[in-house]
């Protein structure tokens, strides 16, 4: 029998017992549908994270902090007071935990720059702005984000801040456009805004900058103004008025640049060298890694449920085909008597299983994509409107193809038992069968 005829016969046989086939397909459909949706969820969220990476920071930088001498003491007992220590941001652990880090000064910056693999180092200047205002006079609270060269903000209008420019530039969040009295994002470009900072002596300084861009809210940059280097330095200097040099140059963290082409091993080696020198370092990938790991974990659990559904469905295939083999005993015997080889008989039944798997998974994946897209756009307009750019459920052709192929593979495995039974059948016995 020709392969094409074999496939044709298998497909034809599938529809002989329609109700039974449809029920089996339905069971597979449920599994494939679930797999498609859960995978789409993973794809959608991870794609969003990837898009956001560029906004959070460039991928050839890492954040470095100096480990305080008393930071790593054994957790039992109170920590000794260190007047020089800086209480940094929250760290992993119970709520309220903060990392205690040693200040990074000029000496430390030089020390970091000397470490092999470090191309450039820059202290992170934390700016604590009081408010932002425009010509119409209303003042609004605002955070100030750091701009790292190479980082890509997701812009609603305008362009990225120019690191090299000597004039003061700022990118404002989309949500401030209305409040500051601009008609829309495009209208804000080129306008002047004023940011205020207070120095250690309580004197408030107002500094002006030109709006060069309007950032869409995203994971990285929600409601922060992002200055270029010139404006950032100006704000920091104003905020540091009255401090002597040693007080001024005490940063809680610094940004280290490394070769963008570094392999993972090279990055790890660099982090080891930094650790030896007494610095903690975090790459952008590490920051996002935990987030992605959580998403992947959730998707994995959901996928496990879908796989269980598929396993149950595969028993349905076994059952359907066993019944089919039983019903067609005489037909199989006749085909064998007429010279059909056992291999072809096996092929006929396993192809039937594969075809049932294909139908179930293709329909499941197709409908899954339709429903996923509909749900995603419905949620995007309502619940998730605050996260523009997020397509909750997204599909990529490769993983859809993988799902269909995996289901067909499972169906083939399920079909081997009945198919082998059919292939083993003795034609004489089958023809005697009344």
């Amino acid at each position, binding site marked *: 029998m*020709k392969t094409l*005829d074999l496939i044709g016969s298998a497909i034809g046989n599938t529809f*002989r017992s329609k109700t039974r086939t449809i029920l089996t397909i339905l069971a597979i459909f449920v599994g494939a549908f679930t797999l498609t949706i859960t995978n789409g969820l993973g794809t959608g969220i991870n794609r969003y994270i990837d898009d956001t990476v560029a906004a959070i920071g460039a991928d050839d930088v890492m954040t470095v902090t100096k480990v305080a001498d008393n930071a790593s003491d054994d957790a039992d007992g109170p920590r000794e007071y260190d007047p020089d220590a800086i209480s940094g941001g929250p760290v992993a652990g119970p709520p309220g935990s903060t990392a205690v880090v040693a200040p990074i000064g000029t000496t430390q910056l030089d020390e970091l720059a000397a470490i092999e693999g470090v191309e450039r180092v820059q202290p992170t200047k934390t700016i604590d702005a009081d408010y932002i205002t425009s010509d119409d006079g209303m003042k609004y609270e605002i955070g100030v984000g750091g701009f790292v060269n190479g980082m890509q903000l997701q812009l609603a209008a305008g362009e990225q801040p120019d690191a090299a420019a000597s004039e003061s530039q700022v990118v404002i969040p989309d949500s401030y456009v209305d409040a500051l009295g601009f008609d829309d994002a495009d209208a804000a470009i080129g306008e002047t805004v004023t940011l205020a900072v207070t120095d250690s002596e309580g004197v408030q300084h107002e500094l002006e900058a030109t709006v060069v861009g309007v950032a869409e809210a995203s994971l990285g940059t929600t409601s922060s103004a992002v200055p270029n280097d010139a404006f950032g330095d100006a704000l920091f200097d104003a905020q540091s008025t009255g401090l002597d040099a040693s007080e001024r140059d005490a940063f809680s963290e610094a940004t280290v640049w490394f070769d963008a082409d570094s392999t993972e091993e090279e990055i790890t080696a660099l982090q080891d060298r930094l650790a030896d020198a007494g610095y903690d370092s975090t790459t952008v990938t590490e920051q996002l890694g935990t987030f992605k790991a959580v998403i992947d974990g959730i998707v994995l659990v959901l996928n496990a449920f879908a796989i269980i559904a598929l396993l149950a469905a595969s028993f349905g295939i076994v059952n359907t085909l066993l019944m089919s083999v039983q019903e067609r005993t*005489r037909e199989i015997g*006749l085909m064998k008597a007429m*010279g059909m080889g056992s291999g072809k008989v096996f092929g006929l039944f396993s192809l039937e299983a594969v075809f049932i798997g294909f139908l179930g998974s293709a329909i499941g994946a197709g409908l899954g994509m339709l429903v996923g897209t509909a749900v995603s756009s419905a949620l995007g307009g309502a619940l998730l409107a605050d996260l523009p750019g997020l397509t909750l459920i997204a599909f990529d052709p490769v993983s859809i193809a993988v799902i269909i192929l995996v289901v067909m593979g499972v169906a083939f495995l399920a079909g081997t038992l009945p198919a082998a039974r059919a292939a083993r059948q003795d034609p004489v016995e089958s*023809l005697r069968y009344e």
Partner: protein
Amino acid sequence: MTAPILSAKDVHKSYGRGPNRFDALKGVSLDIHEGESVAIIGKSGSGKSTLMHVLALLDQPTEGSIELEGADTRGLRGAKLNRTRNKTFGFVFQQFFLTPNASVIENVVLPLKIAGVGRGERKRRGLAALEQLELDDKARNKAVNLSGGQKQRSVIARALVNNPRVIFADEPTGNLDTATGAVVEDILFDLNREQGITLIVVTHDEELAARCDRRIYIRDGVIVDEEVAA
């Protein structure tokens, strides 16, 4: 004289082992020549079907051998055996063995499909066989909707579609009324006479057997008598 197309040499066939062992054939020898019509007659359970299965190379004898045109068939295995059966034999069974929900033509061309004949050629030869049996107007009908006689005629069309040299018919009229049975018999003997196809009929019907060139009587697995037509 040429070698017989089929020849059984002291064939034994037993089922089961030990105390459950049952000898269905106990040393059967016979020669069948090309173009002959032979009836194998005996009561139910005498071993007729068993002998037919062994002759048609569907089953292997426990002892003894079957020769096809003088060549021992014990060495035939796997694909070669399948091809030999596909090309040489056609089968007609009492219970028809048609696939009920497939069309008549699909049922008829099954041996060609197994042989790997292309679609167009299959259709042409299938229709020709149906025409010969005056069933070409039923080609598209489902097999299940045919009358008993039409079913058996479809089965005969299927048996001869691949131009076999031997047609085995196991109780071909067993499920038909006398009139329809007679028509089916006529068709089989016409094929034998006009196309020279060797006909081996297994039956317990004396009247059907009487129309054959030769009658071989079998009882309890041994040949008890042999009659040649006058």
